[in-house]
């Protein structure tokens, strides 16, 4: 695994994408097919399932280092990474053994059926035979949740250079639910035409946020505007009389949405649609919280189907009668899409409405009504645009409405993970309810590194109490918290759940007493909930 550990170090040591791609390419050039396949799987979040419980790993690690478990836990809170904490705390320094990456992965898969005792013996053997860096990489394979700061896009680029396959075609090959356990490098990368695998989705075309005024986009007649819905971006595939529903995160979600089964009858084979899946009832969209409760359930019950029925608001067609339409201009795709959706009789497909657009000023006005229409803003698409791969500038833009904001007091702080290790970066915010502060949101992003350091120093100096990794702090700092939506919630103390809360800015000008109140929050719920 030395070559893989070295690759990991190289990726970790640099922030420059060119260097990362070069390191990965030269790794691919030297690695055998099994190691290449597993590297692709690991870097595209297709690790083997976790085979050992992390509670056991903590126990064994502290025992092997002859340290009490509480001290291990404290160290973990500060290091912010379990695999790393175990690697650092373990006494062995030398590397005494080596296996290839794929052999280690197999070793990990083989741990799964073993008893706790047998697992312990094997894992301790590994820790005692690897050096600190190798141990860290092994633990990462074992525990999952790996961020190496290398996007799938860059991985694909390096692989394309190595395999001499065109990057877009490779992106397509790497989509879908392949597993390293059941395929080979040759099958995945070299041999098959991706279109042969009929469950495979197309890579999604993603929009950037519009910066500046829409006028800069040029002639308004070249553009199409639609509502931007807040649901799950998805792809519906009908091929070989079968239905596949993919999320943008490349998760196969067919079972979560049994409503779409009727589309196998309603749509012709060789159809791929792109759209937003949203809960929709009595002629209007429900909020995203409804969707969340639905997709978090393991089984979709009858009650859920009734209380949170879903539809797809379709806005694009990528394949028609088995033919890839992505190079066809959008206005032609739109005509095909309209004909198809109008023809079918199912209740689960709705055509995304094209908004009247005779001037940019009109559009600016329409955008201000987004929230009333339960939309998060607008999408702007060039009428003659092709359907591209990944996030690209130029032809598609998202233009969201400004978020809702509220001024809140920070009352708890927790240390972050990964890059934010050992810094208090995760905060809980509260609003006033009379004399009391009621927590209503957690947020951990939105501040600059400099601000984070200052807040971190404040937390350390103004700690009132500690509970494990959490500190309560004296309620002094006020932040403007921004969020996309607000919904009633019985699971939250404050009675509301926020959508995408984050820190908008630090209100250093505001004393805590002037933060917003629970009443203000309730008013927002009435207006926008």
């Amino acid at each position: 695994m030395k070559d893989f550990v070295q690759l990991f170090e190289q990726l970790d040591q640099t922030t420059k994408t060119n260097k990362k791609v070069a390191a990965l390419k030269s790794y691919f050039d030297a690695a055998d097919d099994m190691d290449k396949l597993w590297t692709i799987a690991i870097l595209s979040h297709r690790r083997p399932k976790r085979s050992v419980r992390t509670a056991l790993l903590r126990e064994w690690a502290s025992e092997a280092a002859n340290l009490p478990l509480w001290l291990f836990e404290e160290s973990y809170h500060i290091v912010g990474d379990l695999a790393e904490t175990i690697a650092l705390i373990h006494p062995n320094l030398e590397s005494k053994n080596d296996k290839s990456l794929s052999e280690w992965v197999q070793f990990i898969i083989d741990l799964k059926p073993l008893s706790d005792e047998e697992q312990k013996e094997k894992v301790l053997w590994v820790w005692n035979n690897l050096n600190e860096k190798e141990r860290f990489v092994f633990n990462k394979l074992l525990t999952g949740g790996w961020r190496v700061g290398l996007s799938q896009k860059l991985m694909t680029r390096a692989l394309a250079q190595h395999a001499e396959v065109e990057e877009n075609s490779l992106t397509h090959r790497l989509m879908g639910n392949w597993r390293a356990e059941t395929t080979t490098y040759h099958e995945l990368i070299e041999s098959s035409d991706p279109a042969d695998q009929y469950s495979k989705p197309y890579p999604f075309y993603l929009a950037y946020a519009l910066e500046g005024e829409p006028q800069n986009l040029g002639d308004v007649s070249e553009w199409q505007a639609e509502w931007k819905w807040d649901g799950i971006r998805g792809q519906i595939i009908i091929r070989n009389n079968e239905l596949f529903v993919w999320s943008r995160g490349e998760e196969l979600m067919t079972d979560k949405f049994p409503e779409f089964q009727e589309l196998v009858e309603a749509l012709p084979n060789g159809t791929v649609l792109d759209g937003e899946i949203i809960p929709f009832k009595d002629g209007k969209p429900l909020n995203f919280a409804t969707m969340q409760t639905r997709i978090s359930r393991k089984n979709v019950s009858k009650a859920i189907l009734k209380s949170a029925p879903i539809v797809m608001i379709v806005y694009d067609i990528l394949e028609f009668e088995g033919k890839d339409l992505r190079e066809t201009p959008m206005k032609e795709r739109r005509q095909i899409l309209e004909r198809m959706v109008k023809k079918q009789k199912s209740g689960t497909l709705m055509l995304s409405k094209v908004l009247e657009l005779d001037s940019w000023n009109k559009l600016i006005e329409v955008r201000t009504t987004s929230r009333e229409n339960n939309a998060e803003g607008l999408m702007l698409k060039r009428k003659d645009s092709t359907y591209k791969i990944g996030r690209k500038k130029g032809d598609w833009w998202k233009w969201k409405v400004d978020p809702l904001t509220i001024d809140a007091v920070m009352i708890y702080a927790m240390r972050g993970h990964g890059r934010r290790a050992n810094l208090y970066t995760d905060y809980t915010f509260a609003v006033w309810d009379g004399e009391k502060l009621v927590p209503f949101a957690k947020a951990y992003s939105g501040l600059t590194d400099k601000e984070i350091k200052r807040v971190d120093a404040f937390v350390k100096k103004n700690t009132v109490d500690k509970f494990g990794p959490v500190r309560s702090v004296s309620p002094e700092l006020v932040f403007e918290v921004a969020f996309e939506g607000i919904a009633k919630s019985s699971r939250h103390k404050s009675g509301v759940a926020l959508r995408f809360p984050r820190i908008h800015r630090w209100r250093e000008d505001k004393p805590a007493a002037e933060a917003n109140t629970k009443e203000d929050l309730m008013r927002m719920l009435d207006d926008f909930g």
Partner: protein
Amino acid sequence: MPLLQFTEKGIYCKRANVYIDPWKPVDYAIITHAHADHSRWGNKFYLSHHLSKPIIQHRLGQDISIESMEYGESRTINGVNFSFYPAGHIIGSAQVRVEYKGEIWVASGDYKLEDDGFCAPFEPVKCNVFITECTFGLPVFKWKPQAEVFAEINAWWRKNKAEGKATVLAGYSLGKAQRILQGIDPSIGKVFNHGAIEKTNEIIRNMGVSLNETIYVEPKMKKKDFEGSLIIAPPGALGSSWQKKFPAYEVGMASGWMKVRGTRRRESLDRGFVLSDHADWGGLNTAIKATECQKVIVTHGYTDIFSKWLNNQGIETTVESTEFEGEMNETAND
């Protein structure tokens, strides 16, 4: 009455009316070392080690009232004997041994156990009560011998030089910068220094301590002057406009915090080298045992965790809060 107590002004010896590293102005301040959080402004009189004196004067003004003494020397005030022992932290750093009628306390300031080949190496001092920092008081902090770290730094510098790049390495101006300067292989190339470091070097050289040759980074210099060279800079200079004068370069940092991947990554560095002037986990535990003390007082760092650990080990330990910057200072000043 304890021999030393913790007051709102600092570590106080009432019998002698003397403070050690006070954080508020007092009449008589004994200083463990010249870092800013230990030798502060405003005291009427300072007593430090010889090698700290010129640095403190440079920072606080030539007009302060300051005297100095050697390791092993002592001074008796109202029957209380104060003496200095090497702390191994930076040049001139001292542990302050305080003795009265056979009772001995040691205020160790900041310290490390490894001999860095530049400052006087740490000497354990037997005592009844040991006052210690614990900046890196967690078992994840284990240092490698510095020879291995310098081999890594030299290899990195050589590689950068071969690629025609400059090498920028960050370490704080007093202590780490000189340790780097004396630890690297000067045959690889030219060594440049940021102004803040060059100033400190000048003071050290004026004390008669020799340092490897360095060149001050001057505004008039051209990009190509720096090709293949090593540039030592304080962490605060990273990302500032000061760097614009350099050709293509890689950036590294030498600090104990580089042990943790998250800290290393958020500094957006090309390389992080684990090199600290503070004791690691093993060092802290070894140092405490070597004092054979009956009681430990921890002052800064992961104090809650480290004191709990020591108490569990059967070593009576309490935490006193101070204004020394253990946990606060992050990478800037370890």
